């Protein structure tokens, strides 16, 4: 197949041309989180219109029905063009979509999916102050009272919940039996009475996450996904909705951003400092290895040969490279890097080195900490024994 007729090459060419014309050049200039969110909304709307926003949705949706190979091309090109990442719409188009598509009723799908394309945003209400990596420990209570569930509790680390219209909520409907069996899954209106959202002030100055306080929030029974007690299973659908594309995109972006380190070396007059050169050269190989891992992971998904633990490897390899990238920047930046500078929303490799360094924790802690990933790799990939269930302390 020649390059001109290969559908992937066609897609790539078309998207590249489209991005050259439509990619917002000024997205890094948002001075506030609100301005960043506004630019995210505009960018999402533009991508929906052009048919690049939801390549993973079924073909009946405009822009949907793309193969994983095509999705890969789209994210490669978004990274290559240094277009804004799709952060605000991420939970909506991946988590909410997958949950509704796989576990939602026909009515729920009809009610919510079109809204996502119109820009309605969702957040995820899973983590709690007492249940970080241990989701089964969710304590937010949902009590059935007639046609509604009345919900009380607190959620935390919910990405951009302060801007969300709706929430994918995991709550406990029973304390009997296995912890997982007492969970139920809801679609919650963020404007419902009793819902309070408080942005989390992060250490680098971002407000990407929020806490959600639930005080006698009434959720109609019709907003329950699956049966009562099915929450754990539905949550698995949510969590497995996106696997690999993001890390590939982020790896590619980090590779592109190695130029920032190069600039720093040249600006600092260290182009003949053998030690700095070696560390930079080794980092380049480390970043390339992350990209290669992410590519390989996507290939194995396309081929259906993905193994348990593969995703954990990619995630930890990425997060460690990201930390090393930022640490080298901090080191080379010297005293200049210690003076505070306005942060760039939505960029993990912004060249604001201390901010990038602190931002990198989002990948070593959030979404299943490094420590949890190591357990998965050791136990489920290398077959090292799990600690017996009895090894708990009351």
């Amino acid at each position: 197949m020649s390059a001109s007729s290969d559908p992937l090459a066609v897609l790539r060419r078309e998207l590249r041309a489209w991005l050259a014309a439509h990619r917002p050049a000024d997205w890094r200039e948002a001075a506030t989180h609100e301005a960043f969110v506004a630019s995210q909304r505009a960018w999402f709307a533009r991508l929906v219109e052009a048919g690049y926003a939801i390549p993973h949705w079924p073909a009946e949706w405009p822009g949907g029905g793309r193969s994983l190979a095509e999705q890969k091309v789209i994210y490669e090109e978004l990274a290559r063009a240094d277009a804004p990442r799709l952060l605000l719409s991420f939970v909506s188009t991946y988590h909410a979509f997958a949950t509704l598509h796989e576990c939602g009723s026909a009515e729920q799908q009809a009610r919510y999916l079109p809204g996502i394309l119109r820009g309605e945003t969702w957040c995820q209400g899973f983590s709690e102050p007492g249940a970080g990596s241990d989701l089964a420990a969710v304590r937010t209570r949902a009590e059935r009272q007639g046609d509604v569930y009345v919900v009380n509790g607190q959620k935390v680390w919910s990405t951009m919940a302060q801007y969300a219209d709706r929430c994918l909520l995991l709550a406990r409907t029973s304390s009997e039996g296995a912890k997982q069996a007492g969970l139920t899954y809801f679609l919650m209106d963020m404007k419902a009475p009793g819902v309070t959202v408080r942005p989390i002030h992060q250490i680098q100055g971002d407000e990407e996450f929020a806490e959600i306080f639930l005080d006698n929030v009434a959720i109609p029974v019709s907003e329950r996904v699956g049966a009562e007690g099915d929450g754990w299973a539905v949550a698995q659908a949510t969590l497995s909705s996106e696997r690999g594309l993001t890390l590939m995109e982020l790896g590619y972006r980090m590779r592109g951003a190695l130029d920032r380190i190069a600039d720093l070396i040249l600006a600092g007059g260290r182009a003949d400092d053998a030690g700095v050169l070696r560390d930079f050269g080794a980092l380049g190989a480390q970043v390339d290895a992350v990209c290669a891992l992410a590519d390989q992971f996507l290939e194995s998904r396309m081929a259906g040969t993905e193994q348990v633990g593969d995703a954990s490897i990619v995630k930890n390899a990425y997060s460690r490279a990201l930390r090393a990238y930022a640490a080298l920047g901090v080191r080379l930046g010297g005293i200049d890097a210690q003076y505070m500078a306005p942060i760039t929303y939505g960029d993990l490799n912004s060249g604001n080195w201390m901010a990038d360094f602190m931002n990198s924790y989002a990948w070593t802690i959030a979404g299943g900490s490094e420590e949890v990933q190591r357990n998965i790799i050791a136990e489920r990939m290398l077959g090292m024994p799990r600690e017996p269930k009895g090894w708990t302390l009351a």
Partner: protein
Amino acid sequence: MTIARDELRDATRKTLGEAGLMPDAGQSWQLLAELGWFGLAAPEADGGLGLGAEAVAAVHIELGRALVPGAAIAQMTAIAVLCAAPDLPDRDARIAAAIAGERVALSLDPADATGLLGLVDADLAREVLLVAPDRIALAPIEQATGRPAWDLSRRLFDGTAGPATVIATGEAARAIHDLATRRLLLALSADAVGGAEAALDMAVDYLKTRRQFDRPLALFQALKHRVADLKIAVAAAEALLWSRAGDEASLVQLGALKALATTTYCRVAEEAVQLHGGIGLTREHPCHLFLKRAFLNAALGGDADHWTERAARAALAPPSTADR
């Protein structure tokens, strides 16, 4: 001296302890002045306590532990310079005022040739010491422009100065520059050791309290071993600090100490945030304060790259020409 060291640490900790982490800047400055600790190492003839460099280290460990804001490192270094300068006008009055807490600014920025960048609390100082290898001078501060650092416990400024009064030149200036750099390195090292200890303590306490998967995190062996390694690193940094805290340690020995101590602090603070998980990423929790101070300490006064390279060059050079 070990007794004095421990007593000083205890006294400082008790005095600061009640105010908690990152206490009020003005109050803690006043407290240090009242205790006479800015003059800890100044000769008794100059109104100081004559206790030498080890005492300086002891106090800075505790200031680092408590993340005490302010310019204590610059102030104590400046007083050492004032006491050593041969041509200081109004000598006794100036030294007495500085010991009593009248601020004298002094650059902590290693890349600064003007002596006017990286000044802590310069808006509260009337004068700045300009410490160059061949010339020590004192100048009035005309303007101080705030330039916030990530470290929330140090308010940094860029300054402009009026006409300078030269207070040392030639060999005397060189000796004073050497002394000032050595004191600065020692103080930064001590601050790093204290901060690393406190960040580690905080992480250990958190692990003992926080529960996941039905047990305290402190029971997870993988975390225990990481914490043990951090403990070893902090203990090594502290031992090296005391072995070089005497006045006889050379510039490169103190530089290598500073490299090791601040690298250790950065490592401990980085791990402390990771061990805290999500809560460590919120501004409400103080863990990040250590991280930011650790990295600023690493950059101030010359970084690890600079000092480890110099230490190696000194070790390779024949003794007669060795970098002191």
